[in-house]
Every structure is written in C-alpha cells, then in structure tokens.
C-alpha cells in the first residue's frame, strides 16, 4: 500500500500535473464564482477539455476544478449577495451581512480557510475509506448491488431538494430515460426512435450538459437584467487571524465531518451539506444571536461543509459508480471519457490512475486557497460579466462539450431535447439531480435485477425468496423502505408547516 501511495505521489505531484491542478482550481473558482454557473455545470463543461490529456492529468485537472468551484461560489455570495453555486447559498446569509458592515475581507477569509480545511478533511476520508469500500465492493453480488442502487434512489426523497414527491417523480423520469438504448440482455432497441446517437442510451456527458447546462441557459434567458453590471465592494485584508479561527475551531471540524458524510449520501449534495453545517454550527454556537447578522462562525459552518462534500461524494462514485452528488455524477463522464468505468476495479486495475487523482486533491485544495489569498481581487471581477454574455457563452460551451464527446451531430439534438425537458421541469418545481441519478443508476439496477431473476429462476426460488435468503440484502431492503417512509413523513410535515424547502439546483 505504501508503495502504491509513494508511486502515486510521484505522479500526482510532478510539475505538469501540479500545473494542471492549479489551472483547474483557478478556472473552477472563476466558474464557481460566476452566478449562473454551478459546480455541476463547471465540471460538465470542463470534462471535454480533458479529452487529449492523459487520464491522470485529466482527472487531476477536473479535481482541481471541482474543489475550486465549490469554494468559488462563496465569492459572489459574500460580495454581491448572489450565490455563485447552490453550494454557497447558506454562506450568503451571514457573508453578505459582513460585507454590508464593511468586513467583506473577513468573511472571504473565513470562506477560504473553511473551504480549505473542509476540502482536506473530505480528501483524507476519501483516501482512507475508498480503498476499504472498494475491497468490500468486490464481494458485492448482484442482489446486494441492486438494493444499494434502490437505496441510493430512495435517499433522493428523504434528503433531496424541493417537494419530496417531485423529487421521486424526477427520479422515475430519470429511470425511464435510462431505459433508452439497447436492452442489456436481449439487445433489442428501446425508445431510440431511429436516432443512432441513442443506440447506447443517453450518453452521460451529453445528458448532463443538456439537462443542466442548456436548461440553465434557458433559465438565464428567462431572467431579467441581461445587460446589467454590478458593482463589487472593496475588499480589505483577507486573513482572518488565528485568534478568530481558533475561536470557532469546533465549527471547522464539525462542519467538515458533516460535509463528508452528506457527500457520501447519493441523495444529498454540497448545498444541503452547507445548510446542515450552518444549522448545526448555530445549534452548538456560543453566540447564536449573531447568526443572520454577520457571523464569521456561520460562514465557516457553511463553507467547511460544502468543500468536505468533494471527498465524500467521490467515495461511492469511485468505488461503486453511484455518484454522491450531481457534480460527481458529471465526473463519471470524466472517467468515461478516459476509458474508465467507476467501480471497485478502479482501485485494482487502475490504481495507478486513481490514487494519483485522490492525492492531487490535496494539492487542489491548497491551490485554490493560495490563488484566493493572492488574487481574490482579480478573481472577484468575474461577477461583473452580464448575464446575457454568460447565457450565450455557456450555450456555446455546452455545444462544444456535447459535440466533442463523439463528434456526432445527434448529440446536439439530444442535448437540446434534454435541455428543454430540464428547463420545463425546473420551472415546474422538479429537481434535476435525481434525473441524472436515474439515468446513471437505472441501467445498473436493471442489469443486476435481470441477473438476480435468472439466478433465482435457476435455483427454483421466487424473486422475493432469493432476496430474503441473504442478510445484507434484507438490511438494504429495510433501509430503502425506511428512507421512503421517512420521505413521506418529511413531505407531510413540510406541507403542514409550510416551511420553505431546499433549493432545486444542486451541487
């Protein structure tokens, strides 16, 4: 193990790779800071850029972008009260208050230090946990994997954004879209309508670019202020000082742990993590009244959690192919483009690629922090870009991303179709992340279910009988049912109290 790590460190930290991580981190921060471009969108747009790179370089670059983008959202949240990414919505509440009091630098410094710390903790957990999960995953059989997937889908309702019912409907829409293509066992074509590009189903990258990117372009076009420009407040010193940091060290640690765990859960992303992080910080705070009026602790509580999601989300994604959030779902596209399939084999057959990637994340967190401390003044200028320019630019970037996947014009039409679908769904209050989850996990679930049915048949058991014959499967079934029941309870509670639910766009 140490040998692998040492060799991987050599690959991860060699100059060209570090340069790519740095560029990725800076670009990620810029995209993340831009209101209207989420971290998910950032990765979706950056994946095609890694085309000609070696797998280690490409993944390291994307890792840098992931870390940078989740951090970057805080910049616009704090400075202009508009979240750069959904992950930074919770940061807005106190971050902007601090800016109004002339302490923008203080808030920004808190965001940088918290994001750095959270990111590193998440990466440490990833480095330690992923190989263990991968080793366990090698022994997972079809029935168990099927129920893991079912459980993953059911967490969508339990924790996901928007109305729980709509979340589950989105998940089902995703499952249906996932059936498009060639039937895994019979080879017959389903729902392809003669479109060659759909013979293998909706390609993940095109799917994400269409559902998230084009729908966002349409969403931006629907908004007001296409040509307006905003003023950026002046920023003073960024370093918060050790005294302030130590005052809230418990928050740094607590939020980082929360973020890592929330990241692992497929139904929840950085946005939810940041809310939970902030709420828990509030609960344990010695100065709860400060919250909402400009509390440094609140900013830390939110930002440490959302960056910890990076590492957490990669645990199930890399080891099982089940994305921990929408961004890691987009990263699956990054793996596919380099000929890798997420799953436990990554840690055996392609260990010489995956370990350098994980190690490079440590550098990524460091780089965005350094870039921010050194050049925030310049990075922040990105919020000046008018929405109209953004909408057009993202449209072309999306076209570039979708087309460069396999040079098929079909993909442009697929992208546009999904974009319109995604836009309509967003406007009617349906979250989009469960759709991508369904598209990715649906085929996985179906393949495994077919296998299970074949095996059960061969053994003369009924399907249910086969499921009940294995303890792990029973546990997973119970967990799935529990998650679904919890979703229903949560929905009923929310309808009664009428409280606002989570944001629909997610990271």
């Amino acid at each position, binding site marked *: 193990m140490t040998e692998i790590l040492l060799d991987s460190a050599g690959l991860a930290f060699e100059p060209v790779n570090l340069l790519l991580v740095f560029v990725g981190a800076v670009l990620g921060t810029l995209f993340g800071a831009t209101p209207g471009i989420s971290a998910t969108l950032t990765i979706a747009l950056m994946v095609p*850029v890694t085309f*000609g790179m070696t797998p280690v370089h490409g993944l390291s670059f994307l890792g840098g972008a992931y870390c940078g983008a989740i951090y970057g959202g805080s910049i616009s949240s704090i400075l202009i009260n508009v979240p750069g990414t959904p992950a930074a919505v919770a940061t807005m509440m106190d971050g902007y208050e601090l800016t109004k009091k002339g302490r923008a630098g203080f808030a920004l410094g808190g965001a940088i230090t918290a994001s750095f710390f959270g990111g590193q903790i998440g990466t440490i957990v990833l480095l330690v946990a992923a190989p263990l999960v991968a080793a366990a995953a090698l022994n997972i059989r079809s029935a168990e994997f099927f129920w893991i997937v079912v459980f993953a889908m059911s967490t969508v309702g339990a924790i996901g954004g928007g109305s729980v019912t709509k979340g589950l409907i989105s998940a089902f829409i995703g499952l249906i879209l996932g059936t498009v293509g060639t039937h895994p066992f019979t080879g017959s074509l389903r729902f392809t309508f003669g479109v060659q590009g759909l013979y293998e189903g909706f390609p993940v990258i095109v799917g994400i670019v269409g559902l998230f990117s*084009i729908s966002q372009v*349409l969403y931006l076009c629907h908004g007001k202020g296409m040509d307006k420009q905003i003023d950026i407040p002046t920023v003073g010193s960024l370093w918060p000082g050790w005294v302030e940091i130590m005052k809230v060290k418990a928050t740094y640690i607590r939020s980082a742990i929360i973020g890592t765990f929330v990241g692992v859960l497929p139904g929840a992303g950085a946005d939810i993590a940041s809310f939970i992080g902030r709420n828990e910080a509030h609960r344990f705070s010695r100065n709860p009244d400060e919250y909402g009026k400009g509390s440094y602790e609140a900013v830390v509580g939110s930002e440490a959690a959302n960056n910890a999601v990076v590492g957490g989300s990669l645990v199930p994604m890399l080891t099982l192919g089940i994305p921990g959030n929408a961004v890691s779902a987009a990263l699956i596209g990054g793996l596919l483009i380099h000929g890798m399939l997420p799953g436990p084999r990554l840690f055996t057959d392609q260990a010489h690629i995956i370990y350098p990637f994980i190690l490079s994340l440590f550098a990524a967190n460091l780089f965005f922090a350094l870039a921010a401390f050194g050049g925030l003044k310049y990075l922040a200028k990105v919020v000046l870009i*008018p929405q*109209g320019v953004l909408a057009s*630019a993202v449209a*072309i970037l999306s076209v570039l991303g979708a087309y460069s996947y396999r040079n098929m014009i079909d993909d442009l039409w697929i992208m546009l179709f999904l974009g319109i679908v995604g836009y309509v769904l967003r406007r009617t209050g349906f979250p989009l992340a469960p759709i991508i989850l369904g598209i990715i996990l649906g085929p996985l679930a179906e393949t495994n279910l077919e296998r299970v049915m074949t095996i059960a048949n061969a053994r003369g058991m009924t399907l249910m009988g086969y499921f009940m014959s294995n303890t792990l499967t029973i546990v997973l079934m119970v967990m799935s049912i529990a998650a679904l029941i919890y979703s229903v309870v949560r929905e009923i509670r929310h309808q009664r109290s009428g409280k606002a639910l989570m944001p629909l766009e997610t990271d």
Partner: protein
Amino acid sequence: MTQADVRVLVTIGMLVAYGLIMPTLGFFVTSALFLLLHMLYLGIRGPVWLASPIILLLGTAWALFERFLGVPLPHGLIY
C-alpha cells in the same frame, strides 16, 4: 406568454438553427454567429462586450482543441 418566455423560445429557435447550420459552416463560424446574434438579442451592446467573449471563447477553443489536444472541431465552407 411574457417577454421572458419569448426570450426562451427565441433562444431555443436559435439553438435549433445552430444545429442545422453547423454541419455546413463549421463550429467556429456558426458559434461566432450565434454568440454575436444571441448577445445582441439579449441586449448586450458595445464592441468590447460583444467581441471579447467571441474572441476569448473561440480563441481558447481553437488553441485547445486544434493545437494542443489535436482533436479538430468541424470545419465548414468558410473555415
């Protein structure tokens, strides 16, 4: 059907037009046209704000895909 909805429909229309024109005119020319027309439609004015995104985006795309990565983007009648 509000003004905003019209913007969305027009954008969809422009994207459809893009898909139809791209095979003939190639990526760079079609993209430049789209960027220019779409930004003008959305109300962006001034040569700086109009030209910079086009030059930056397409310039980077060209350098990245055609030069560094060696994965050419479709060319058309003009380029």
